[in-house]
């Protein structure tokens, strides 16, 4: 702590000055590493991703192998979390379940982002009746909580992997669209866009060079957080029987099957529930860190 000398000038303690000039990625890493909780969840996330990729090698048994001989056994050295009412190894099911949850949870928001951003950007940029109609529909879709929308759409579509993707995309695309539209609108009204058009730059180039980078910024801020929501959504839908169908394991339907068998074996419910919570929490924490780096003013 330097002593304060009256004649020293405006900046008294310069020790902190050099922190600012590093790249975003480095800043992100600093944010993550500085907070022990966040760091912990960063590794949790890494672990979940690795597990889902290497599921086949990590899970000791096949998740769909049934056997009447070993129903509802408790945890043991062979069956780490015991077996369920069909004799399947709970641990293996949870390991494989991570795949479904992650693939759907990551793929769908990304797709939703692509679709939503396209709609929002085009609507916001060109305006007119396209924007009015699209805007109205988006507003209505947004009035529905994502889960409700998911349930309603799943109600009409048959089940299956791509149906689930469609459900999740429909649930999230409007949200991305709204962000993209807001971002586009505020940029569109900037004089330099008009100047570029007057100079003969094509719309496509303007969108690509000026609008898209900005929109991308706002989208990235929320993408990770919404991946967390998507995972939670998928689990809920599977739990309701509307998503991934058995015997294909998903954390949601593991809880569903497990609920009917609670008294005999609580482990499927507990195990899958923890898996969901940890993964969603991990994505949330990393998402928060990303947001802090890209949009520090949003932080409270």
């Amino acid at each position, binding site marked *: 702590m330097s002593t304060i000398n009256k004649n020293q000038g405006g900046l008294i303690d310069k020790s902190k000055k050099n922190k600012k000039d590093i790249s975003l990625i480095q800043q992100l890493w600093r944010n993550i590493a500085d907070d022990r909780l966040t760091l912990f969840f960063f590794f949790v996330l890494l672990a979940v991703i690795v597990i889902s990729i290497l599921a086949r090698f990590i899970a000791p048994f096949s998740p769909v192998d049934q056997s009447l001989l070993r129903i509802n056994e408790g945890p043991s050295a062979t069956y780490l979390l015991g077996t369920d009412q069909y004799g399947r190894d709970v641990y293996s099911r949870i390991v494989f379940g991570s795949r479904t949850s992650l693939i759907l949870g990551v793929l769908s928001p990304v797709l939703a982002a692509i679709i939503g951003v396209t709609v929002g950007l085009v609507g916001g940029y060109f305006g007119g009746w396209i924007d009015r109609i699209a805007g*109205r*529909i988006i507003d*209505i879709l947004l*009035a*529905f*909580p994502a*889960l*409700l929308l998911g*349930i*309603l*759409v*799943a*109600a*009409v*579509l*048959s089940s299956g992997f791509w149906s689930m993707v469609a459900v999740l995309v429909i649930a999230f695309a409007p949200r991305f669209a709204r962000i993209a539209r807001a971002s586009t609108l505020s940029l569109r009204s900037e004089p330099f866009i008009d100047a570029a058009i007057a100079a003969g730059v094509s719309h496509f180039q303007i969108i690509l060079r000026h609008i898209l980078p900005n929109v991308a910024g706002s989208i990235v801020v929320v993408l990770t957080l919404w991946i*967390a929501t998507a995972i*939670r959504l998928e*689990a*809920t839908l599977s*739990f*309701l*029987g*509307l998503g991934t169908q058995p015997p294909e394991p998903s954390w949601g339907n593991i*809880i569903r099957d497990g*609920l009917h068998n*609670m*008294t005999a074996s*609580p482990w499927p*419910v507990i195990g899958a*529930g923890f898996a*969901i*919570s*940890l993964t*969603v*929490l991990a994505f*949330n*924490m990393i998402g928060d860190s990303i947001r802090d780096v890209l949009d520090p003013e949003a932080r*409270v």
Partner: protein
Amino acid sequence: MLKTILWRIFDAIPTLILVLTLVFVALRILPGDTALAVLGEHASAEQLANFRQKTGLDQPIWKQYIDFLINSAQFNFGNSLSTNFSVAQLVKLNLPYTIELTIAATIIGTVIAIPIGVASAVHKGEWIDNSSRFFSLLGYAIPDFFLGAVLLIVFALNLGWFPISGGGEGFVDKLWHLALPALALGLIKAAFTCRLTRSSLLEVTTKDYVRTARAKGASENRVIYRHALRNALLPIVTGLALAILSTLSGSVAIELIFSRPGVGSMLVGAIESRDYPVVQAGIVVFALFVVFVNLVMDILYSLIDPRVGHTS
């Protein structure tokens, strides 16, 4: 003031029609052949034709659309395929349970959360803030049905303090059946509301008029409660619409966990048994709910914020 309210109600009608239209599109146009989906692949041509005639699917699409709108307005959805009860009756039976769950959970969510959120903001950085933020974080991550399952296991199955299924008859019995489900939903809701209250209040305290209040010599308590909170509540009230609606959607899973009657479990059951008329009704009910809640919240907000809807 009355004018604003009437105008908003009036403006909700085209929204309503648009919503119903979207539902119609989803129901009739998206899934392909409904008859096939409901009756299965092995149905005979005759059975399919019968079904189509019974449910009006053989009519031209524009007629179906008009019929759909009229039927929705009158709440006439025909009869359930599995039980042959009137669908309207079914909805009437189930709706009260869903409504009481939603209201109870929302109350728990806000009554607990707002004071904690305020305390959290006022004592930022201290233990109450840190612990409430931690619980909020958990609430964001733990799926509500998981919390419900845990509560069911611990308090109903193991300890036997609460019933493990049903909705109950009579006021007290209903409350008893309502307790755990409402708690499960409400706690998760509380996590969100708490965080929102905190950030909203923190943001308001940086505003100029808070500085003015201090400059007048007001005590910190007065500054927080009379000046900051009143303004901080505005975004929370806006969030209330979303809170109620997301509680509503969460109720579907909770009803399943606790084997509770309600529109959600009715809908999910109908999806499973491919009870087409009931599925239709369920979707329409939820859609109507959404429009209604949004409308009420819009009106409420315009009453609270003197800046809205004022003819200046």
